[in-house]
């Protein structure tokens, strides 16, 4: 009606009838400024996939940049802590170590046990055809310690603690607690992220070892009941198959994976802005990215160790 009135001009369109409330409403509408919003810029539908792809590529570059920035901050914080210029936050480290590492031990042990058992069962099934079931021990020894233990532990920690770290830092950003820290002259990287990252770096080898051992236990159980390999023969064979090298190769990867999980979780936490929706998105993307990066890193390590002949 208002549009019609505007179009025709006040003289040609008049309101007839209606009670006082209606007239007041209509005059309020016609008094309101009638700005037309410029229609939002639409990308051609054929270009949408390219535009999205471009954004992803740029986003990936920004991530690499942010990772380096946060890494630099963490290194400075570590340096300042080691040179006693900043407090040693031992209590915070112990608390994080308990949350991130000790409380993850049962679940890491459990999934490694189950995965170890499943792999062993499948392997026995195949090896039986050739009549060399006993080689399952060699396989278990190498696979558990080199790959499965550390990888499962890393994926578990990425899901458990990566999300927790992102959510904690993100919530602190939303509630301005992060800003409050900075304003009080406390470096958030030093106070919040460093204890978590150190807990991850120190704790991951422990979790990887726990994972490997329970994977091996799962293998031993299945080998006994499914493959008819008694425990003493399993242990005997294990002595020959397992080398310090394969244990070391597995454990040396663990701190790097812990660091990657901590770094990615911190970056995603820092990206949280404003809404609780963004907190959810960032937490999800923290877990997804951590798991992805951990697996890629494992692959790169495998190539590296193969190249140097370990």
């Amino acid at each position, binding site marked *: 009606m208002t549009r019609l009135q505007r179009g025709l001009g006040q003289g040609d369109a008049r309101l007839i009838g209606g009670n006082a409330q209606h007239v007041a409403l209509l005059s309020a509408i016609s008094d309101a400024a009638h700005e037309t919003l410029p229609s939002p810029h639409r990308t051609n539908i054929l270009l949408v996939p390219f535009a999205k792809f471009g954004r992803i590529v740029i986003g990936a570059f920004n991530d690499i940049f942010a990772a380096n920035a946060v890494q630099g901050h963490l290194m400075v914080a570590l340096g300042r802590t080691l040179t006693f210029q900043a*407090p040693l936050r031992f209590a915070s480290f112990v608390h994080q170590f308990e949350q991130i590492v000790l409380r993850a031990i049962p679940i890491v042990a459990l999934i490694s046990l189950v995965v170890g058992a499943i792999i062993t069962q499948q392997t026995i099934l195949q090896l039986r055809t050739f009549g060399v079931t006993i080689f399952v021990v060699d396989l278990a020894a190498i696979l558990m310690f080199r790959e499965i233990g550390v990888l499962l532990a890393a994926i578990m920690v990425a899901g458990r603690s990566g999300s927790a770290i992102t959510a904690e830092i993100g*919530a602190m950003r939303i*509630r*301005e*607690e992060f*800003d*409050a820290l*900075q*304003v*009080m*002259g*406390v470096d958030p990287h030093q106070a919040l992220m460093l204890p978590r990252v150190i807990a991850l770096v120190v704790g991951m080898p422990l979790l990887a070892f726990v994972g490997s051992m329970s994977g091996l236990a799962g293998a031993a159980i299945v080998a006994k009941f499914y493959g008819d390999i008694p425990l003493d023969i399993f242990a005997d064979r294990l002595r020959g198959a397992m080398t310090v090298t394969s244990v070391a190769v597995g454990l040396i990867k663990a701190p790097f994976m812990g660091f990657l999980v901590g770094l990615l979780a911190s970056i995603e936490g820092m990206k949280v802005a404003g809404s609780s929706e963004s907190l959810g998105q960032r937490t999800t993307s923290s877990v997804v990215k951590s798991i992805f990066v951990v697996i890629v890193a494992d692959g790169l390590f495998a190539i590296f160790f193969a190249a140097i002949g370990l």
Partner: protein
Amino acid sequence: MINALIPEADPAITVDGLVVKIGSRTIINGLNFDLHRREILGLIGPSGSGKSVTLRALIGLLPHAGGNVTVMGRNYAQLNRRQRVETQRNWGVLFQQGALFSSLTVKENIEFQMREHLHLSPKLRSDIAMIKLDLVGLPAAAAHSYPAELSGGMIKRAALARALALDPQILFLDEPTAGLDPIGAGKFDELIVTLRDTLGLTVLMVTHDLDSLAMACDRIVALADGKLLKAGTMAEMLQSDQPWLQEYFHGPRARNIGS
């Protein structure tokens, strides 16, 4: 440990041609004003005029794209890390939502900066925290509650106690009375004035509350579009014929302030 106290300077803060950009948008474009010692300055302006951005830029949370900010006689942008921490120790900030650390109790929140920057015995820290709590008018029983258990007004007071923990020279308040009922807001204003008179604080507050402006503020700085619109006392503001100030100070909600 950093124990050097910065000598009191006048003006406490000088803002000279401040430019702040967020992304490619210029939010603050050449802002100038002074914050004198022991005055309560109110920062007003329409929504989106850059009040909060100004505050965040002054306390170093946003980078300055241009201009100089001199805090307690020193150019903030040129301070080294040590001097910056010294400066940060000499100001207290009350964020709009309080920004208390939610994982710490009220008392731990107040003690936080003492634990970070000073070597005090736990007994002394605790005593100081309780004094601050009393100073802002919170019951001693609130000391051991977590921020989530407090009402909005109590959170503001607890956050103020934390801002005052290290006896700062300058206090920044971001909408201190927003979300408080008129009685609570009135008491908060009185508290700020009392603290200024007793502790010799310099206060910069971003506010929309006309009663706060009339009751507590000595001078008012009005912003519009990232620039200074007018700075002056309440009386000067009331006499201004600038249209926005006219509407602000003579609008339907401003009946009482002239009297």
